[in-house]
C-alpha cells in the first residue's frame, strides 16, 4: 500500500520535471547491470557474515578479563569507527595489500568492508550484552553456570533480541557502503551504472533501477529482522 503511494508520488514528481528519458540506451547494458548487482550482493553477503563474526569477537575482546586485550579491542573499534571507510579502502588496498603482494581486490575489499562494519556491530552487541541486568548474572552464578555457560544460556539469548534492530540497520548500511569499493577497482553495481550512464549518454536512467536493485535486498532483510524480533519477543 505504502509502496504504491510512494511509487505514484515518485511518478508524478518525475513527470513534472521535463527530463527526456532514454531507456533504450540503458536497456542495452542490462547484462552489465546484472553482473554489477551480483557482485554487490556477493561481496555484501560475505562482508555481512564476516562483520557479525568479527564484531562478536571484538565485543568479547572489549569485555575480556585481561586488560591488554580490552585495550587492543577498544583501540581497533575507535580507530576503525573514527576514520572514513574511503580512506581505509585506499590505504588498505594500495598501501597495505600492495606491500603484502596481495593482488585480490575482491578479497581485500570484502575484508575491509566487513572490518569497518564489525567495529560498529561490536558496539551494538556490547550495548545489548551490558544491558542484561546484574540480577540475571547473579541468577546464572546461583544455578552454577560458569562464565562460558552464562554467556551461552543467559546473556546471548537475551542480548540477541536487543541487538537485532541495530544490527539490521548496520547491515543495510554495509550493503550501501559496498558502492565505495569502486575506488579499489571493483566494478560493483554503482560503478557499472556510472559506466553505463557515460557510455549511453544518459544521466539519470541508471540510477532509478539502481535504487530498486538495493531495495530488493534491503526490504526483505528488514522484514526478516522484524520476523526474528517477533520470534524472540517475550516480556521481561
Amino acid at each position: 500500500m505504502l509502496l504504491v503511494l510512494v511509487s505514484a508520488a515518485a511518478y508524478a514528481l518525475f513527470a513534472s520535471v521535463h527530463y527526456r528519458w532514454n531507456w533504450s540506451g540503458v536497456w542495452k547494458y542490462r547484462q552489465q547491470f546484472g553482473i554489477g548487482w551480483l557482485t554487490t550482493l556477493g561481496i555484501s553477503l560475505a562482508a555481512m557474515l564476516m562483520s557479525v563474526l568479527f564484531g562478536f569477537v571484538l565485543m568479547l575482546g572489549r569485555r575480556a578479563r585481561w586488560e591488554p586485550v580490552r585495550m587492543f579491542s577498544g583501540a581497533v573499534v575507535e580507530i576503525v569507527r573514527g576514520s572514513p571507510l574511503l580512506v581505509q579502502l585506499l590505504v588498505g588496498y594500495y598501501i597495505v595489500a600492495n606491500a603484502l603482494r596481495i593482488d585480490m581486490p575482491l578479497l581485500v575489499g570484502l575484508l575491509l568492508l566487513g572490518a569497518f562494519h564489525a567495529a560498529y556491530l561490536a558496539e551494538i552487541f556490547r550495548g545489548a550484552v551490558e544491558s542484561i541486568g546484574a540480577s540475571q548474572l547473579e541468577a546464572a552464578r546461583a544455578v552454577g553456570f560458569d562464565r562460558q555457560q552464562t554467556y551461552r544460556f543467559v546473556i546471548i539469548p537475551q542480548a540477541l533480541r536487543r541487538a537485532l534492530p541495530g544490527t539490521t540497520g548496520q547491515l543495510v548500511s554495509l550493503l550501501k557502503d559496498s558502492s565505495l569499493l569502486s575506488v579499489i577497482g571493483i566494478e560493483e553495481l554503482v560503478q557499472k551504472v556510472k559506466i553505463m550512464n557515460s557510455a549511453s549518454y544518459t544521466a539519470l536512467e541508471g540510477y532509478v533501477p539502481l535504487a530498486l536493485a538495493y531495495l530488493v535486498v534491503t526490504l526483505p532483510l528488514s522484514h526478516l529482522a522484524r520476523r526474528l524480533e517477533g520470534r524472540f519477543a517475550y516480556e521481561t
Partner: protein
Amino acid sequence: MKLETHAVTKRYGAHAALDGASFATGDSARVIALLGPSGGGKSTLLRVLGCLLVPDEGHVSIDARTLPHDEDGALTERRGNGFVFQGYNLFPHLTALQNITLPLKEVHGMSESEAAQRALELLHRLGLESHEHKRPSQLSGGQQQRAAIARALAPKPRLLLLDEPTSALDPVMTGEVLDVIRELAEAGQSIILATHEISFARKVADWVVFLAAGKVQESSSAAQFFTKPQTELAQQYLEGLSKYR
C-alpha cells in the same frame, strides 16, 4: 550443621556491607534465620555463606570445613547450594520448566528426560501444574517465586539459601510462598533464610543470627532469641516489627 564465620568483611567501595562479622551456631542448627534492619548486611552475609560472594577478609566454615575463596572452588561449592532471591530472578526467555531443566542438564549432567521428570515433580509439588510452559512474565509474583524455589530445589541442594523471598509479594502470595518454605523446613531441608517475617521465623527457625551495621549483634537459638533477646538493638527490632501484628 554447625555454621561459623570468623571476622568476615565485605566492602563495596568505601562502604563495608559486612564489617568483621563473627558468629557460630550450635552443632545441629538446621533452619537458620538472618534477621535485622535493612542495610544491616543480611543479604551480603547470605551470599557469603552460599559462596555467591567471596569475602575480602575472614572465612566461613560449615561443619568445620572452610569454604574456598578461589573462583573455581566457589563455583563447585555453589553447585551444591540452591538460591532464591527477593526479585525471583528467573530467566525471562525460558519457560518455568526450562528454567529448572537447563541447569539440571548443563550443570548437573542430567539427561533431558530425567531433568524434565524432576522439574515436573517439583512444579506439581509446589502447585504449579498447568503453568510449566509459561514464561515468567505470564506468572504472578507468587507463582514466579514458587518456580524459583523449584529451580533452587531441583538439584537436591545440601543448603537452600533464601534472600527475603517474600519482600516483593502481597500478603496472599506471601502466604503461598511461606507455606512452601515451611513444608521444606519440616521435611528436613537445611535452610538459611534472610527475612523480615519474624513471626514466620519464630515458627520455623531453630537458630537466629541478628545483624546490624555489618556486624553480628546476636547469635542464639531461636527459642532464646525470641523470648529473651540479649541486646538492646534486637529488643527494639522485635518490638518495632511486632507493633502492628
